[in-house]
């Protein structure tokens, strides 16, 4: 028999929490991006777990779409970062704060 679904869900929750924390703690834009990937993976894990739990292929199809969207997001995001870095030497999100009140 396989491992109970609850364990996967807990694992996914922990992964999501770490991703969220990292996103808020780190200032390097690239690493913030990686943290988003962590969160997306946590969600994927949940999807797959529920697919198995509910015996529904739909969960896995959703993961497929999340993958595509994540890929597109990474491509555009990195392009933005490249465009940004072309004008700046530093790589931290905190350097961009024109909006300071």
């Amino acid at each position, binding site marked *: 028999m396989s491992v109970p679904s609850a364990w996967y869900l807990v694992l996914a929750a922990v992964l999501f929490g770490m991703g969220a924390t*990292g996103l808020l703690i780190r200032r390097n834009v690239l690493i913030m991006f990686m943290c988003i990937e962590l969160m997306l993976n946590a969600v994927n894990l949940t999807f797959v777990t529920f697919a198995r739990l509910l015996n529904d292929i739909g969960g896995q199809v959703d993961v497929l779409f999340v993958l595509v969207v994540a890929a597109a997001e990474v491509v555009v995001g990195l392009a933005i970062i490249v465009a940004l870095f072309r004008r700046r030497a530093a790589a931290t999100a905190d350097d961009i704060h024109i909006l300071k009140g």
Partner: protein
Amino acid sequence: MLATLSAAMLADTSGQALAHASAWAVFAVGAAMILTGAAGVILLRNPVHSALMLVVTLFGVALEFIDESADFLAAVQIIVYAGAVVILFLFVIMFLGVDRKEAIAAEPTKLQKPLAALMGLVVLVEILALSRVDHWASGAPAQSGVLNGPGDNVQKLGQAVYTGYLLPFEMTAALLVIAVVATVVLSKRSAGSPERSSQGDAELSGRAGDPEDSEVSL
């Protein structure tokens, strides 16, 4: 590979306990990889190291996918994520030469870090609390096809994608095209825009800058 192994073990009735144990083992290994990798991503100071730790996490997730009989997704996870996305990350890091260490301790706003950690923790607790509630799982039969049953995973996934999910699937194609075009537009160096000028630094930091440069910024 592990899936075939566990399937073979399941076939053997006397090996049920062994199969059980192996599933747990796969889960444990995957979980360890995931957590280690995630911790590495958010704690290591060198972006290159973070990217490599991300690969570890992604492999761990792929392992869990296999354990949950999502064979095709496991393969895609490794090919697309580890093979393409992380490579893209590394490429950008190297290309831009920003693989310097970041001073994680330095923080412009005092409360950001403790609050962020606290928030991560509370989110975790809340998700766990929510996962204890299952009354929204209605138990209604699957609309898009069952997971278990005859046929292999790829076949069933393909059937679902190309029938019930055809429209969203086509839309992802459009999304990818848009993303490609956007990337080309964003990466294109507009004529006359200075490369990494100190002027641009000043502008993005909120100090006075040349107004005609402002079009490229975020």
